[in-house]
């Protein structure tokens, strides 16, 4: 167990670093798409360090103080519960802790903790952002749930390892090819999960400053930044495990997560922002209908 914890810790550091790097890459790619040079790919590291080393910070109360920790815990916990390389002792982390259902609910913890801290700040923008985020979540979860239910039912398992195992035996066994509609639904839902344009509802800088974290500063913000990064990586890894057949070694894992990372990025950079109503309606119509095709398929075939 001690070894496990040690390796998990290493993996966590790696995950955070990878997440920050991906964030930097996304900023760079966005900049290049907008015909400018953009910051270095390590910009996020600099930002995090700067925030981490700020001299002063303010706190609005206990929940506010704990919010970044919740956020980091939610991100890191999710990351550690998802096996990166299935079967590998060092890289499956704590995936014995729970199956896909556990992960899906664990994912909420960080968001909820941060939402509470933001709400305690007493800044009106914070609850506005949070309620938008939660409503958005209700929207994006539906297609995601549909595809996850499809996978769980066809693979007759709820554990991530089981789902990965079911996809072994060649690229065409990946769920993205065997259940393409479910995969499409889930990947559209991923756009919402990453809260990037066109589903940038929570932060919405043009409307409510930056929403929930308005009052967070300095070290608080650096923790949240790290938590957010590693949470993003956790989602990529989860999607890799669910749809791209998992990874057999670390290199594959990097490659596949990078591919998944690119998908929301390219959507983000070319679309304007939805209103919340439009966003939820969108999620509850098109991706849901697409996902339902596969759901109906397994319903009939079964």
């Amino acid at each position, binding site marked *: 167990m001690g070894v496990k914890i040690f390796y998990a810790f290493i993996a966590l550091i790696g995950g955070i670093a990878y997440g920050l790097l991906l964030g930097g890459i996304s900023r760079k790619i966005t900049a290049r798409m907008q015909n400018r040079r953009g910051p270095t790919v390590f910009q996020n590291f600099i930002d995090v360090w700067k925030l981490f*080393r700020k*001299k*002063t*910070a303010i*706190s*609005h*109360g*206990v*929940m506010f*103080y704990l919010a*970044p*920790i*919740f956020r*980091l815990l939610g991100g890191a916990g999710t990351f*550690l519960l998802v096996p990166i390389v299935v079967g590998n002792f060092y890289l499956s982390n*704590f995936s*014995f*802790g*729970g*199956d*896909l*259902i*556990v992960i899906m*609910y*664990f994912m*909420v*913890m960080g968001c*909820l903790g941060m939402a*509470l801290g933001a*709400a*305690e*700040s*007493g*800044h009106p923008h914070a*609850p*506005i952002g949070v*309620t938008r985020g*939660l*409503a958005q*979540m*209700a*929207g994006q*979860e539906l297609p995601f*749930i*549909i595809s996850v*239910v499809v996978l*769980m*039912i066809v693979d*007759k398992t*709820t554990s991530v390892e*089981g789902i990965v195992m079911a996809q072994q035996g060649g690229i065409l066994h990946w769920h993205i090819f065997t259940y393409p509609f479910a995969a499409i639904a889930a990947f559209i839902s991923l756009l919402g999960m990453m809260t990037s344009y066109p589903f940038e509802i929570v932060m919405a800088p043009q409307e409510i400053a930056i929403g929930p974290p*308005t*009052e967070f500063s*300095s*070290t608080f913000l650096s*923790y949240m930044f790290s938590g957010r990064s590693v949470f993003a990586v956790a989602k990529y890894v989860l999607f890799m495990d669910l749809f791209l057949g998992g990874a057999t070694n670390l290199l594959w894992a990097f490659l596949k997560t990078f591919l998944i990372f690119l998908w929301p990025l390219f959507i983000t950079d070319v679309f304007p922002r939805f209103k*919340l109503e439009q966003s*939820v309606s969108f999620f509850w119509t098109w991706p849901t209908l697409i996902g339902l095709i596969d*759901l109906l398929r397994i*319903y009939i075939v079964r």
Partner: protein
Amino acid sequence: MVNPILIIAITLASAFFIGILQVYSKLWAKVFFFLVLIFDFVAAGANFYGFLSGKITSPILVKIGGFPPPIGINLFVGKAEAAMGFLIFTITLLGAYHLARRGIPEPQGKAMVLFLLLSLGAAGITFTGDFFNLFVFIEITSIAAYGLVASAKTEKSLEAAFKYMVIGSISSTFILLGVVFLYKATGSLNMLDIAKKVKTFPLTPVFSLISLVFFAGLLIELEVFPINGWALDVYQGADPVVVAVLTGAAVKAFYLIFIKAGGYLALPSFFQLSLIFGGGTYLVSQFLAWRQRDVRRLLGYSSVAQLGLLILSAGFFLNNSLPSSSRHFIALAIVLFVFNHSFAKSSLFLLVDNVETREMEGWKGILKRNPLFKFIFSTSVFSITGVPPFPGFWAKLLLIFAIPKEYAWVVGLILLGAVAEIVYYFRFYRIASDGEGEKVKKNLASPLAASLILITGGGVAWSMFSGYMGIMFNSLIIVFLMVAAAIYIFGFSKPLQWTASLVLLGYGIYRFLPSMKANLHGFFLALVFFGGAILLFATYPTSKRLSWSFYPAYLVVIFSLVGIALSTSWLNLFVYWELMSWSSFLLVNMGKKAKRAAWIYAIFSSAGAYSMLAGIYLLPKLSISKIGVTGVLIPVLLITGFLVKMATSPLHIWARDAYGESPDEFTPLLSGIMSKIGVFGSALVFLYVIANISSGPALRYGLAWLGVLTAFFMTLLAVFQEDLKKLLAYSSVGQVGYILLGLAIATPLGWNAALYHTVDHFIFKGLLFVAAAGIIYRVGTSYLPHMGGLIRRMPLTFLAVLIAIISLAGIPPMAGFAGKWLLYSALIEKQWVFITVVAFLASTLAFLYCFKILHTVFLGQLQDENKNAREVPFPIAAAETILLVATVAIGAFPRLLLDPINKVLNKIPGMKNSGLFYEKTLGAVSKLGHWNALFLMVFTVGSFIFALIFFALTSARVREVKQLDVGYAGEVPRQVEDLHFGYDLYAHFRRTVKWLIYPLVSKIWKGIYEWTGTFAEVLRRFYTGNINTYAAYVILISILILHFFAGGK
């Protein structure tokens, strides 16, 4: 033994003597009047007691003038006659006493004479053994009644008296005609003689026609629909005291002769006649009263309906083809009905006499300021509507279970009418108890006596009932219930009541500990007891402002729940169920704005209970065990009753307001435990009924959809609630939907999920409601936008609510997640794909309101008016802590709860292999997946602490700032600024899901209510109020009766 002739003769003589005495001394006339009545009362009582005690064994036969029966007139007093006589004189005495206290209408002498004549006539009708003599007494009664009705001397009463006279004459004519024909046909006027002759007599159509003429006359007097317009006018127009005596005594005498004549004349079509006229009158009148605004007329409709039910029962009683045991039960039911109705209705009419206004609106809030009035009113209304433990309830039960299965539709009709009765009576009750009315005249002695008689009768009826139906009521529970009543009667101070209740509950736990075995019954028994104790404990701090009857009613609820959990027979369960429903109705009604909610609650729970009763009636046997039934009707009827308590959509509309407006101290029980007893009932239905029918899987699938849609829609509605308790109410209902879903899956895993969630939902929702009670106590409002920022004032409550919410939302390390995990595992195992998706989505939606609770209550800006709010009082905090510890403990060690559940499930055939086993690293493992609760708890808490320490060490210098130190667009703040965002948090989301939250169900229910009312209004046009039409109806109906029922069909 007192010779009945004495009663009649002395009353008759003194009636005329009073007229003379009146001229000399009004006072002495009055004294004499009462002396005569008391004599009658004592004499009739003595006879009745003689029959009861067995001193008189054979019927008293009085030969007048010494002629033997067939030739001379004679009186015949059997058991029934003696009882009826006693009833008549009791009611008359009560009425007379009331009249005397209020002031006898002028001219006093005439009124007293008529009053005596009325009672004398009624007694004569009862006692006589001769048909012609009967006619004479009917005439005496009627003429006295006309006079008394007119004595109020208002326009309405005079009109009513005139109508009564016209219709009464027609009726008398029919009766006389019948008697004459009878004599012609049989050559005798003596009832017994005729009865003897009829047995050997060829039943020719002509003879049937003759007796029909007689019965047509009687039916007119018995106010059957549609020839009862005059009677309603009498009820409405006459002096209420007179009406009380008329409906309580005179009409009952007519009813007795109706049964007697039915038996003597052996009319072949009597059964159909009574079924059609009795049933029709019953049902139509119950609905006609639906929108009635005039109190007296409403009571009139109710009287007519009750008479209809009596006529119906008479038909069954005299139907020789039924087994004698069921006829015996029906006889008992009739006795109870007559007793119940006479006293309850007289009491109500005497109460009406105390209130000036006729309009129901005028009764607004009348109960609030008049406690004694309230007591009498409640007793009478409860008794008439058949609320346990009053006689009406037992009468209804006896009647229903005595009706053979081939007349099941009659049972349906009776229950339908009963629901309608509850709708209008409790609308009346609601208006009377809503708000603060004025004090009324206090002339309450007679009605009080009547209601006390009713209560005694209820107790007697209960023991009789359990004796006859062979049901063993757990005597310990009865004792506890009586102690609860004693707490009410002795009226201790409220903290003392609280202590007494806790002690009683503790003693109950001690006594019932052996019953908490590892089976379903024991499981729910433990939940009721321990949960009830915790929730009761938390009521202490606010107990001072509670109503006097709070703790007794609370205890009655708890011990009824115990009774339900321990029931081995469906009927036993039903009795406790009703007791629980109605005591909880009283509790809900104690809320300040809860009157309407309580009314709807009463309607729904009684409708549900009657549906359950119909199901129980249709069951082949009453014990709770495997029952082989076919068809989907019985399980649906049964489970509807339980679903109402669980407030499953579309039966949920009572829940929001009943939860929201009921006293804060009671709501935790309502949500935490009472809804769970619905789960218990449903589990029984699933286990013993649905499991055995062929369409079981389809039914289960339907119920699963019902459960999941409830969860979905209630969650959605909770999101948009702005009231703390109503929000929690919707949430509670939604969570119970999950439990129903788990039950409907009916695999070991599904039942595991359902039972786990049952306990867990009690823990977190009990915690939330208890905390809500504390918060509302401190803050003084349950309106969410008026709260905010309370985390600094109530840190412990915040922590408790936070953990409860995490548990509710199903976020891993807390207890709630296990329920979710089990449920989804079961669903995926069962492969109900669409249901799984909706269930997942509903639980995602739950995050929305979870955040809303935490934010609007505890986070955000503190409002100025809550500046001085303190932490919740100690008992509430203690209860919170207990439940909090339970949540965390079960979160870390779910086997604390899962192992007992497994034990329970192992007792159930088909549920043996729970589908879960435990492994060291993987934790709980099902066929599909795994989840290690302890690891998650340790991992979460451990990393949390680690991260916290690291954060505290490395963070920048942190300054704790105050409320308005927020970077709000650089604006310079002002002291009065309210930056709290607490109203309509999800306005944007509501715009998206507008089409989903359209209040369809409540509109449908409202539509049903309104349309029934409108239909009743249309039907009511039948009563034109015109005597010509009434007379025409009478003639027409009589001809129809003669036409259709003649002939020995």
